[in-house]
């Protein structure tokens, strides 16, 4: 029986059991991979993921075979060799022949497993021959994507596209405030701006980190690699079909570890080319005006994605580490001090110098004029001066 058909049977059996167990409330949710309860890796869309799945199946079935033999013998013994059946215990013990035999046989099985594992691992770690490179930077708690180069793709033109990818702020809010999350589509695995890549292209991902260790993982790609400060790690993917693929950070990176998902949109090469050109020309980038109203409007959005995690939605702060911005002396004081704090960071406060002057001006203005705060408006020029 193939694994697939067995899986289908197990799916049905399992799902029925689950419904009995947990009620049907959660059964009709829209899962981010697979359909409801699954018993295997999600369907692979890259050669690497298929390799991982095959390796998983191979070792799994070898283990099952060993288990059938060993547990079979044991279970037979548990029934046949019990005192209540009036058996007299045998007295045999110590046999060098048997011991040698059950050392060598497992060794041979392992050698077989090791051979195919070696082949697949060498293929896995070979990141040569890539057609384009994307730099992925892990940060507490979002990802930054930068298109580094792209031989044989529209990327050969000058200029780089770089953007941040944050969790959908509504999802995080619903999670932290214990709202009803069961109806949210792609709950916790949705971002404000997904990574876009072309299909049928060998892409190298370079991974780095600006703070703690994160791990970039898209299960359907079979790719999981740590992003580590001081290191540049690399891995690769060749996505075979179009689709939206989701993943999550897989290395404990602090408080909001569960809130930095990964969403990758794999599109046709032509569509990718169009998207990339648009990104480069700045389309899709939100233009921020310099009026107070415009700054406030843009600042509110930025605050929600970048600042609210620590300083909270109403600027009320969280504990001693994350001071309240509402009524804060510095926020209500001279602008320069406030700008410097956001630009350069201090202690637990990270630096935000990778944001544009306009974005910084917007969010600082928003902080200075919300929740009862009354202070001066900060213009992009002020930020530029303070850099």
């Amino acid at each position: 029986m193939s694994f697939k058909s067995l899986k289908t049977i197990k799916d049905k059996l399992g799902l029925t059991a689950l419904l009995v167990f947990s009620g049907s409330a959660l059964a009709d949710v829209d899962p981010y991979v697979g359909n409801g309860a699954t018993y295997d890796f999600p369907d692979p869309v890259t050669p690497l993921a298929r390799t991982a799945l095959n390796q998983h199946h191979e070792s799994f079935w070898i283990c099952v075979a060993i288990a059938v033999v060993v547990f079979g013998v044991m279970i037979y013994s548990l029934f046949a060799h019990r005192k209540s059946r009036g058996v007299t215990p045998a007295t045999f013990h110590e046999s060098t022949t048997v011991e040698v035999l059950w050392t060598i046989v497992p060794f041979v099985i392992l050698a077989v497993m090791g051979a195919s594992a070696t082949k697949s691992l060498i293929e896995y770690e070979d990141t040569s021959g890539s057609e384009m490179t994307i730099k992925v930077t892990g940060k507490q708690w979002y990802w930054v994507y930068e298109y580094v180069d792209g031989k044989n793709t529209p990327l050969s033109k000058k200029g780089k596209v770089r953007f941040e990818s944050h969790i959908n702020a509504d999802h995080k809010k619903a999670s932290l405030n214990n709202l009803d999350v069961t109806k949210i589509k792609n709950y916790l695995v949705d971002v404000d701006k997904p990574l876009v890549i072309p299909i049928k292209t060998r892409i190298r991902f370079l991974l780095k980190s600006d703070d703690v260790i994160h791990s970039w993982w898209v299960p359907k790609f079979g790719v999981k690699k740590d992003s580590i400060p001081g290191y540049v790690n690399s891995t690769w993917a060749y996505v075979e079909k179009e689709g939206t693929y989701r993943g999550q950070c897989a290395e404990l990176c602090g408080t909001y570890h569960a809130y930095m998902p990964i969403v990758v949109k794999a599109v046709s090469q032509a569509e990718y080319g169009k998207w990339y050109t648009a990104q480069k020309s700045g389309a899709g980038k939100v233009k921020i005006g310099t009026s107070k109203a415009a700054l406030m409007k843009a600042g509110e959005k930025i605050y929600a994605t970048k600042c609210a995690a620590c300083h909270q939605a109403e600027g009320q702060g969280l504990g001693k580490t994350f001071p309240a911005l509402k009524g804060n002396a510095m926020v209500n004081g001279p602008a320069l001090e406030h700008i410097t704090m956001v630009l350069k960071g201090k202690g637990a406060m990270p630096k935000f110098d990778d944001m544009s002057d306009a974005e910084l001006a917007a969010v600082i203005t928003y902080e200075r004029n919300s929740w009862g705060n009354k202070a001066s408006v900060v213009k992009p020029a002020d930020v530029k001066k303070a850099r």
Partner: protein
Amino acid sequence: MNSETTHDDHHHGAPKGLTRWLFTTNHKDIGSLYLWFSFIMLLLGGTYAMGIRAELMQPGIQYFDPETFNMLTTMHGLIMVFGAIMPAFVGLANWLIPMMIGAPDMALPRMNNWSFWILPVAATMLLIASPAFGWTFYAPLSTEYSGGIAFFVFAVHLLGFSSIMGSINIIATILNMRAPGMTLMKMPLFVWTWLITAFLLIAVMPVLAGAVTMMLTDHYFGTAFFKAAGGGDPVLFQHVFWFFGHPEVYIMILPAFGIVSHIIPTFSRKKLFGYTSMVYATASIAFLSFIVWAHHMFTVGMPVAGELFFMYATMLIAVPTGVKVFNWVSTMWRGAMTFETPMLFSIAFVFLFTLGGFSGLMLAITTADFQYHDTYFVVAHFHYVLVTGSLFTIIAAAYYWLPKWTGNMYNEGLGKWHFWLSTISVNVTFFPMHFTGLAGMPRRYADYPLQFADFNFISSIGAFVFGLSQLLFLYIVIACIRSKKAEDKATDQVWEGAEGLEWEIPSPAPYHTFATPPEIK
């Protein structure tokens, strides 16, 4: 020792009051202290686990904010490893090793007292610290992105002192105080496994101490061992930690192998099939445990040659471990088995530990490990080897030797209830975690996408039942200790098939045993 003190030893019993426990140098008292301490820690660590499972029962954040949740997972791991499992094995070693080798006490009784009493202090400091950076405390999250870590570092240091002193004591006792005629290859397997475990402890606890010391100076004194910006290396931390951490997991399982090798022959009424190969297998596992550490960190980006080496070495561990399982099964084969509680827990151990071994072998396959790594598949794996592995054998050992320690039989009916409740609920808890892991749920997540909801719900139900079942164990042990009923009185041999020096002395074991060494044929 002159004849006068020997004479005194024969007659005085246990002193009374609090000072008996505070100042005791008696291996049985210290053994009891260790066991009670570890049981309290088991309940405490279990309470943290209940918190984790309550939060994960439904998607969304219901009870604990993410930072508190991280603290719960961290403290659950630290307390179970350093507070429950390790001290429980040291407690069993204290009680049993002198009685098994015919020694009057441990070789270094005052140090024995000291190594125990450090523990409650260390545990208190750990509770004060309550860190939230994971029990593996990876840099730079622990060094640069956490608050005060001094209490945590010193707690780990103290735990290390305690373990090293305990290990030296065990080695000194085993090597110097065996009864005449008990050669190394006649030692009971529990003694053998502990001798090897003690060497592992002495080898790796200083490495852990080194890791936390570097962490301390990085945090407070401006060094940059693990700080990339200062020329240090965050991955170095992981290498140092797992050089400790992998032998550590064998420290928590080798004595368990010893215990099962006592219980299965007893209730099969048949000699252990391959004593010699069991000893060699234990030594091989101990050796291999030093050369597999980086399989915990396949995703950090090692050279492919390094990954291959650690994959092969890890797979090799399956060989001696397999030898052990085959030997236990062969011991049962054509025996005359009965199924008292210790045997039930031991049989469950052989099944479920082997299951954890299978997932361990799968995790060794590096290409697949990239998918398994840091998911609930790993969580399922190490709970199968640590809960149904280590903890189950500790419980089996408690039931097995309880009549010897207390002089009373425990309530067999309740023991069986405890067994079935624990075994069913532990599987309801951890088996679905294999599936949540394969589907892609990362570990240490306070909240998760909806597709993982069903299995998490089942795991939580199982966990609550498993946690509550252990209160039944507490009741059984207390009832056994306090029983005054004549029909509960244990015989000296206790179990029909039991063999070994500890079964030749009276039940309960007198306060002082083997003041005159027995003769071993």
